[in-house]
């Protein structure tokens, strides 16, 4: 009995001692939108510097909540926060990278880039007004496709998501019916459908459910070989999601440091602009200068060395001019 007790005590001390030493870690959480690129950057950063950037993909809502509560060192959100919100919660904000949200479908025989949809059709599908794939509206845009007479399985997010915010802002701007009935935000009251957790969850559900449609950040569609659709942009053209169309949308963005870079990129003007583009943002606690400096150091490194990886995953790195504006913003707040 006594020996067991003694062993237990020694074990406790050893474990506690071991756990006290730690590699330098930065803890962040938030949007699943940039998770593929952040985790790739973090992996390379670790190889280069030994610092662990632990990023948990819990959805933008989670990122906002956790940084507001100061339970993480930085939060990530695709939904930009207004300067009023940032002031109220003593936060700083800057964009890190840009990307596009795409619609993906799982219909037998329909391959990536084949289906044509417009905002009106997407609205009606997500409102439950168009319920079958061979609906007249969809058929009229896709004369060459054989669409089955099957009910559409709608997939959306179950968690608080910036991707949802971008997607619903796009819908709200394009269809007044959506704006009235549902609205936009990181979490909305979906009229129907199943909820997946994170972009990962939506991609997973679309993969396993036939005749389904979902919205995900493009990297998830690409990595999981999902069939993305073309969308009609405000200029009236059907565009495919790719680096060029994302870049066109991103180019229209005028990010202002004075407004803490608050900007939505949806329904961007431009002949070839992708209609559901967005930047994804990093939120910092203003008063935690030391933690902020560590986070900023990482993103500075990513700005310098991460462009190639970002492009590989079809994210749009920020233009150099914007990166410098961001560096000036950091400097102005004493964390660079």
């Amino acid at each position, binding site marked *: *009995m006594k020996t067991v007790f003694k062993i237990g005590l020694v074990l406790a001390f050893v474990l506690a001692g071991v756990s006290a030493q730690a590699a330098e*870690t930065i803890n962040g959480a938030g949007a699943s939108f940039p998770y593929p690129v952040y985790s*790739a950057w973090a*992996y390379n950063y670790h190889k280069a510097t030994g610092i662990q950037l632990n990023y*948990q993909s819990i959805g933008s809502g989670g990122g906002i909540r956790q940084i507001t*509560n100061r339970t993480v060192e930085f939060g990530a959100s695709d939904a930009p926060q207004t300067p009023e919100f940032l002031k109220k919660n003593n936060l700083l904000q800057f964009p890190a990278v840009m990307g596009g949200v795409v619609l993906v479908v799982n219909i037998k025989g329909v391959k990536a880039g084949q289906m044509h949809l417009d905002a009106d059709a997407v609205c009606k599908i997500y409102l439950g007004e168009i319920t079958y794939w061979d609906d007249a509206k969809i058929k009229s845009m896709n004369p060459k496709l054989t669409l089955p007479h099957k009910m559409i399985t709608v997939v959306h997010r179950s968690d608080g998501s910036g991707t949802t915010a971008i997607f619903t802002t796009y819908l709200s701007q394009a269809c007044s019916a959506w704006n009235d009935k549902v609205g936009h935000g990181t979490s909305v009251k979906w009229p129907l459908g199943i909820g997946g957790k994170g972009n*990962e969850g939506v991609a997973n559900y679309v993969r396993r459910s036939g005749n389904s449609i979902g919205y995900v950040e493009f990297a998830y569609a690409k990595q999981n070989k999902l069939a993305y659709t073309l969308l009609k942009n405000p200029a009236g053209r059907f565009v495919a999601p790719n680096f060029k169309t994302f870049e066109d949308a991103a180019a229209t963005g005028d990010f202002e440091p004075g407004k803490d870079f608050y900007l939505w990129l949806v329904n961007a003007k431009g002949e070839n602009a992708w209609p559901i583009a967005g930047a994804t943002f990093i939120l910092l606690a203003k008063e935690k200068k030391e933690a902020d400096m560590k986070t900023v150091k990482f993103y500075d490194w990513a700005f310098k060395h991460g462009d190639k990886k970002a492009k590989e995953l079809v994210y749009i790195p920020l233009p150099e001019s914007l990166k410098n504006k961001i560096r000036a913003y950091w400097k102005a707040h004493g964390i660079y």
Partner: protein
Amino acid sequence: MTHETKRKIEGFVALFLSTLAAFMGLFWLIFILGDVLINGMGALHLNFFLNDPTPAGVSGGGLRNAFVGQLMITAFATLIGVPIGVLGGTFLAEYARGKKLSQIISILADIMVSVPSIIVGTFIYALMIKPFGHFSGWAGAAALAIIMIPVVLRTTEDMLSLVPWTLREAAFALGAPYYKVIIQVVYRGAATGIFTGVLLSIARVAGETAPLLFTSFNNNFFSMNMNGPMPSLTVSIFQYAMGPYDDWHAQAWAASLVITLFILFITIGGRLLLKWRYKR
């Protein structure tokens, strides 16, 4: 049809259905375990245990960090929960034996055993995460400890009660104070039973996910720092299974296999131990 035949047929049908039910239970077990075995074996290779996770979509990653993290969290949960549980059970079976208070606590402990574990998670979040501003392995360990305490307490109480009273009287007769009687006589007598209770409580928390979701959170890197987010096998399974990558799915199966084998091993071992000890 005579009344007798009717009775016979009714009996036959009913008993047949019962037998069917029993074999259905067997069927589910074999089906589920078999599935875990088949799917898990495929992804079980040395790298799985030696590597840390790679970025999303990149193959070749492992769950070394999650194994170590799970071990640490469970170890600390045991160190916290078991002493409290054993001492608590001792109180109910010894000092408070027969009193109304001991009955009340015993009933409450039984209820606590089945309380939803996610509620324990929210409780610890409010108590240890929100005020301190960061996720931690300590919080995860605390949540698991809270789940373990009632289990250990009840089994200790039951096992100690099985020790015959005369044994205690003999020790008293020799002039021993009560605490000495408990530690040197009663504990010795119930040691196997208490140990089994501890084993079963470990088996119970080793597979818990919900209480860790918002306490120890998760960590993509190898970390032994209990003061920050800790990786754990169960939360990783949740994350990987819900994700779209095939590589993640394979790892989730492999991790499930390891956890299932571990828990089954402990459970069967514990039961065998009890049988061996108490058959004498």
